[in-house]
């Protein structure tokens, strides 16, 4: 648990610290420094969020003549509406909405497929080992560190051969492939932590590979599913590279469209619309983050291997 009690800190006197012995004054120099440093860092982390939100609610004249710290004088969601439905990416002016739906169409199947495949993989690796299974797994994990650029072009050729290049299926396939190492690791470790007796008892009772998986293993693995779900939803939603390469113009996910809206050179930039679009794109992962709380941290810690 909490390991560090640096010298000079009053020892805690129980779960309700403040009510214990005479409380040390809160404003010791040490504490002031501690909290000031934390607050300064927090400002660094919060500032962009603040800027995104306030800018998106301002009008263009206000942005041009005001300053970046100021709150919007007459907050309006006009820029949000425009970002959503009529901002221009190159030639089309349909806003981010199509990108949003593309991202949804990519994220949901990619997440479901990749998690299912990884769960089965992990289960087979733990409970039904076969010749070379560990070798395959080792290469899988090692492979996850290979930069994507190394495998990108051959994958383009493969998807082209399969006739799915430039479609949602291609992106889904790619996400499934590159999600596999970390998710398999996750499920493998989880299934290895379950009591083996359960599996053996089911075997004795004559249950086979799939029956044990669906009736015993799956119902027990809800926690790891949540972690995998968070990892995949945020990871896939935030992807840019695979979307750009494999999705094709019509199917660009939200991140790609956002970048096209903001970084397209034509016209006078509308910073409020740009920032509204940025907020909109960040909304889904942010909601996942705030709703899932501790689970997200677990996912992050587990997903550490993916980098």
């Amino acid at each position, binding site marked *: 648990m*909490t390991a560090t009690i640096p010298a000079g800190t009053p020892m805690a006197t129980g779960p309700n610290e403040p009510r214990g012995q005479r409380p040390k004054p809160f404003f010791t120099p040490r504490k002031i420094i501690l909290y000031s440093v934390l607050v300064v860092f927090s400002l660094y982390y919060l500032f962009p969020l603040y800027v995104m939100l306030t800018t998106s609610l301002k009008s263009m004249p206000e942005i041009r003549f005001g*300053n970046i710290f100021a709150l919007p004088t007459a907050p309006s969601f006009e820029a949000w509406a425009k970002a959503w439905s009529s901002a221009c990416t190159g030639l089309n002016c349909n806003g981010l909405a199509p990108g949003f739906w593309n991202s949804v169409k990519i994220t949901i199947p990619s997440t479901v497929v990749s998690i299912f495949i990884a769960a089965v993989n992990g289960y087979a690796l733990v409970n039904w080992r076969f010749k070379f299974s560990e070798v395959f797994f080792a290469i*899988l994990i090692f492979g996850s560190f290979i930069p994507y650029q190394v495998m990108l072009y051959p994958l383009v050729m493969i998807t082209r051969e399969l006739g799915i290049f430039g479609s949602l299926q291609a992106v889904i396939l790619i996400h499934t492939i590159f999600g596999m190492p970390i998710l398999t690791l996750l499920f493998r470790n989880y299934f290895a932590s379950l009591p083996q007796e359960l599996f053996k008892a089911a075997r004795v009772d004559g249950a086979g590979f799939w029956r044990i998986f669906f009736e015993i293993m799956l119902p027990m693995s809800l926690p790891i599913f949540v972690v995998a779900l968070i990892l995949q939803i945020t990871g896939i939603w935030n992807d840019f590279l695979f979307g750009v390469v494999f999705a094709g113009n019509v199917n660009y996910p939200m991140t790609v469209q956002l970048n096209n809206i903001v970084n397209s050179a034509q016209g006078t930039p509308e*910073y409020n619309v740009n920032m509204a679009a940025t907020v909109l794109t960040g909304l889904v992962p942010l909601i996942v983050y705030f709703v899932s709380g501790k689970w997200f941290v677990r996912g992050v810690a587990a997903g550490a291997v993916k980098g």
Partner: protein
Amino acid sequence: MADTALPLEAGAEKANRPGLLQRIFINNLPAKIAALPMMATVLVVFVGCTIWTIYYSFTNSKLLPTGKLVGFDQYERLFATSRWNVSVWNLVAYGAMSLVFTLVIGFILAVLIDQKIRFESAFRTIMLYPFALSFIVTGLVWQWIMNPTLGLQGTLRGLGWTGFTFDWIANPRMVLFALLIAGLWHGTGFCMVLMLAGLRGVDEEVWKAARIDGIPTWRTYVSIVIPMMRGVLVTAVVIIGSGIVRLYDLVVALTNGGPGISSEVPAKYVFNYMFSGGNIGQGLAGATMMLLTVLIIMIPWAYLEFGGKGRRT
């Protein structure tokens, strides 16, 4: 465990030990079918595609990946191209700074958070949320903040500090620092979470013992706690390192390689040559160099982690 496949093999052992083919293809069939996607990924993508890329990096492929082997020509051209050399240099400079600062800031934040502070979870939430956002979002926000006319610089000048300069994003000599600010914003929270887990894994007794011996706090961190966190630190270095080699989205969103070519990175060079430059051989050679870089990071790590002691994952 492993013995699930045993009865079959043991039974058949006497008459004819199951042939290699049977052991590879027939035994434990459902598991093999279930693991087919994994095996296909390993063989086709991780092994196959990598070998393909390396092979074709030695050809003179232009628009299409065909052509004859030309030895190290592509590599010679690569290292004669200023854009590639700038990219590599940028990656080295950015990577070194990013690695050091991410680790140091992550560690400091973890230590601060670990001081039994109030609002711990609020601080943690604030520090980690950027990590949930994509590099594209990160890049675009910071692009706006660092906008020389309307961003921080313009604002502070408007407020009367007319000499204030913060034009890193438009300044070829400073643009890497602009990248660094955004990169640190995105990644330090994650590093903090890792480090915090490491700190909390250090036994309380260690601290008590150190205090009894009268060792100052900072000394305890430097000589006892940090060495004890070796595992976490190594993991962090490997993750941050392989992330740096991949650096792409952030550059695209924040600077798009500019001004000029002053913030180009290898991943972007590779991408441009493969998909818009019409010179695939160059792209593949660049990609192979990226692979080499990662191997240089990975192999010592893999050796330390899995080579020395018993093999465990």
